[in-house]
């Protein structure tokens, strides 16, 4: 069959899955007084539509920052404004100041879900298709399979179309950034990435690799001539984009400070709730939150994050290729997730995006990570009543990505790039590929078992948080292990240019 028809079918399948998931409940449904992220998004439409720009981030009588105050950068606010205008055209009650708080109706839900679908269709899906066709290797059939597997990634679907958020916009913009850089259009790529950061400040997790890649590229072109020129062009692009995004707020330094204060709430402590990162897992053994002061916690996490992200960034600086860039995106964002301050479990989507890009090259570790990332958000899904979509989409994703990308057949030691590990560990007769496969099977079985237990069994009375804790520690161990693996793959790569491996093309 023609590639374009296969591609259309895969995109339609991806869209159908997304809409089917959106038929389910959303975060905070029917739970006054605070509701959840769905109400937060609706509230931002109300605020941006009714109030003037200089009041959006401030605590006023009309804008109570304690009730879902705006804590994303200006682009989110502009997007909410656009949605608010459309909402008021359909039904003004949806964005009426004050009286629309906690508004819930099936028509409104349809509207909100539709905005997510439209944003996804405009931003994320085209980026995925272009990435698979222009920046990945293999036959056309393999590229189409890759599109399907990336579109089936459950984590993004369940958060955007279930819990309710607009990650597809920020991740889509970041992906456009990768696309730009990969195709050699550095300015456009930088522009897209700056827009992504201005949509959600968590995109800063990806900023180190973008910076090191572009800087490394400038160095390679020689700092005397073209390199310097490139650096200047990129710097100007970044500054201009930032200025344009923040234009309404630049009139008053107090505005800028307040927005920054809302974006980076440093007073809130090392972590909240259960999240699969180092600090929360460490807290099980040592209660660091109580032992250390807030300032010490801040410095500790800053130091740990930078240390963890340093090796991969330096390697990228010295060798700015696309392959290194993708790995550095994974390593940097995963390091930030594991060691940074005030990390939410949804931030796992930030490392998940670059890992999706690795599905074609390292299928088995990528599928493993992506499944673990979805699993780590299980307590959130249970709270939102999304267990059935979670179970179905996870099973479908694992099955189809393993089947279509032949993950288990391409799991030899050579293909998993585990030779450096062999040299390190010095075990002559052990088949590392076999170990990897069996650990994968056991891991998936354990995840399935824990998922089932979380929903079917009640936790013992002494340990009411047992299952979320088990989920988060289990996921943390996976993330740590995979961080080490991806770092080894990136750093152990020889300095000579990577030759195309004929075995990998079909």
């Amino acid at each position: 069959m023609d590639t374009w028809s296969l591609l259309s079918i895969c995109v339609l399948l991806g869209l159908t899955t997304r809409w089917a998931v959106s038929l389910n409940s959303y975060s905070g449904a029917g739970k006054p007084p605070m509701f959840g992220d769905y109400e937060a998004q609706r509230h931002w439409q109300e605020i941006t539509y009714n109030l003037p720009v200089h009041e959006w981030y401030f605590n006023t009588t009309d804008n109570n920052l304690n009730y879902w105050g705006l804590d994303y950068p200006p682009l989110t606010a502009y997007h909410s404004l656009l949605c608010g205008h459309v909402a008021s055209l359909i039904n003004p009650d949806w964005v009426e100041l004050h009286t629309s708080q906690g508004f819930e109706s099936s028509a409104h839900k349809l509207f909100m879900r539709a905005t997510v679908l439209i944003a996804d269709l405009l931003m994320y899906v085209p980026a995925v298709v272009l990435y698979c066709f222009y920046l990945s290797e293999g036959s056309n059939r393999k590229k189409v399979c890759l599109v399907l597997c990336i579109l089936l990634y459950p984590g993004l679907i369940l958060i955007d179309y279930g819990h309710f958020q607009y990650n597809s916009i920020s991740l889509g913009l970041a992906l456009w950034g990768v696309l730009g850089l990969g195709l050699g259009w550095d300015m456009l790529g930088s522009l897209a990435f700056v827009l992504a950061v201005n949509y959600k400040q968590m995109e800063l997790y990806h900023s180190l690799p973008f910076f090191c890649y572009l800087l490394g590229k400038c160095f390679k072109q020689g700092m005397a001539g073209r390199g310097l020129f490139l650096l200047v062009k990129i710097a100007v692009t970044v500054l201009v984009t930032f200025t344009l995004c923040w234009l309404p707020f630049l009139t008053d330094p107090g505005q800028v400070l307040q927005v920054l204060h809302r974006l980076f709430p440093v007073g809130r402590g090392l972590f909240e709730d259960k999240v699969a990162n180092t600090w929360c897992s460490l807290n099980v053994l040592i209660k660091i939150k109580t032992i250390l002061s807030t300032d010490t916690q801040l410095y500790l996490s800053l130091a740990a994050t930078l240390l963890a992200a340093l090796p991969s960034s330096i390697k990228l600086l010295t060798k700015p290729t696309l392959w290194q860039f993708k790995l550095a995106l994974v390593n940097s964002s995963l390091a930030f997730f594991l060691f940074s301050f005030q990390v939410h479990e949804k931030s796992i989507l930030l490392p998940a995006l670059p890992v999706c890009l690795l599905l074609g090259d390292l299928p088995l570790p990528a599928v493993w990570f992506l499944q673990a990332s979805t699993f780590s958000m299980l307590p959130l899904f249970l709270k939102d009543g999304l267990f059935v979509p979670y179970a179905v989409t996870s099973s479908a994703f694992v099955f189809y990505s393993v089947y279509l990308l032949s993950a288990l057949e391409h799991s030899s030691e050579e293909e998993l790039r585990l030779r450096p590990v062999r040299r390190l560990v010095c075990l002559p007769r052990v088949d590392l590929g076999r170990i990897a496969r069996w650990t994968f099977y056991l891991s998936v079985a354990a995840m399935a078992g824990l998922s089932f237990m979380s929903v079917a069994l009640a936790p013992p009375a002494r340990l009411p948080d047992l299952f979320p804790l088990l989920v988060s520690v289990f996921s943390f161990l996976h993330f740590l292990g995979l961080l080490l693996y991806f770092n080894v793959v990136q750093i152990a790569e020889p300095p000579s240019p990577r030759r195309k491996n004929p075995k990998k093309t079909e």
Partner: protein
Amino acid sequence: MAASTADSWSWFPALALGVSFLKCLMINSYHSTDFEVHRNWLAITHSLPVSKWYHESTSEWTLDYPPLFAWFEYGLSHVAQHFDKKMLVVQNLGYASPATVLFQRLSVIATDVVFIYAVRECCRSVREEKGSKDLLVRPYFILAALLLWNYGLLIVDHIHFQYNGFLCGILLLSVARHLQGRHLEGAFLFAVLLNLKHIYLYIAPAYGIFLLRSYCFTKDNTDGSVRWSSLSLVRLIALGSIVISVCALSFGPFIAMGQLPQVLSRLFPFKRGLCHAYWAPNIWALYNVVDKALSVLGLRLKLLANLPKASMTGGLVQEFQHSVLPSVSPSATLICTLVSILPAVLSIWRCPRGARGFLRCLVVCALCSFMFGWHVHEKAILMAILPLSVLAVESREDAGIFLMLATTGHYSLFPLLFTATEMPTKVLLILLFTLYSFTSLKKLFRGFLLNTLEVTYLLGLIAVEIICEVVYPLLPWKQTLPFVTLLAKSVYCSLGVSYSFIRLYLSILRPTDKPKEL
């Protein structure tokens, strides 16, 4: 797809599993009153003794399927009690707790395993030429995809809510058995099917004539006509005893209790109107429209006096009279249907073309019943589309007819899901199926299968949808003439369905070179 070769069947579980996952995701979508119908039947069969099953009328949705289906619901009810006991209380009308919805949806998905097995058997029986090695262009792969991912089944079974997958699975399994030459099993399966849903009586003539002509008469004369002396009484008695014993098992208890007339009156409720609330796109839709047009014309030209204001698309089904053209009674539709079936059935008697000729006759009978039947549901088009898929992957001409019939028939199912939330689902799924069926069949038969006129008609479906859903609500007539959109869709689709019907009929009447073997 990379590792499996075209000869290993590992792709089949992948297709079946994929559609099952999709079905599981649809659990929370809209369900129609048919959901309550089946819940009521679960309650009736579980809570009441057998003697009351066909007398019970607390709910308006009385048991109107044959006894085997009632026993099927009885079996399901034993599993249902572990999900939510309250759904089995007859008085709980409209009860739809999350556990109830989960159980009912899962029961449809689980019983679809019969359909999946039947599809596998059909795929094994498909003939193919030695062609390309590419899996995606093999006839059995295309057939599996067209059947497993059939849009009509997904919409009707897993959203609207019915058990058609289970029933059509038995039908397809029976067809597969006949294609494989295992006629007694095929006959047994059809007998079971008849006792599960009696609408399949319409295709019983195809079975009857085929089995009589090609199975009971073991030899033909050299010119292809029947050799009366070769009647095998053993085979005839075997067939008869299978059918009778299945019917006895099903109706036996009710005959013993003297309830047969009551059961029959429930099974054949002719009080309902000529057309369902949504007109199925058949002959009577065109007839109704012509009648209405003539009556309006007559009033304008002052040829007719006062006319009764008949509402043909009201929510409840009522009897009504036509204004200008003669009114149609149930017996008139029965006669029309029988008359339309006759030539097809006669042609496989005179010139049997083996199991494939029987399959063609089956599709024609199903379409005849759809075109001329009394109170036809638009869902009945599936009875024709699904078996036609088997023919479509083997012959170029059939593929063209299939594309017309399937696209038009599937579009005519749109009014079943009228909620705004289901709009993206039904549009995405129909695009998926239509795109796949067109591109895969085109690749299989290497060339365009439809002429310009047919393509224009199908593109017109998109125009009809846009006009009905987007343009018409903005017009002032929406308030006074609300049924116009349904009417327009129904009439437009009946043109396509009638066209496919005529083409299919011509293909069965066309004489072939020599009679093929059984």
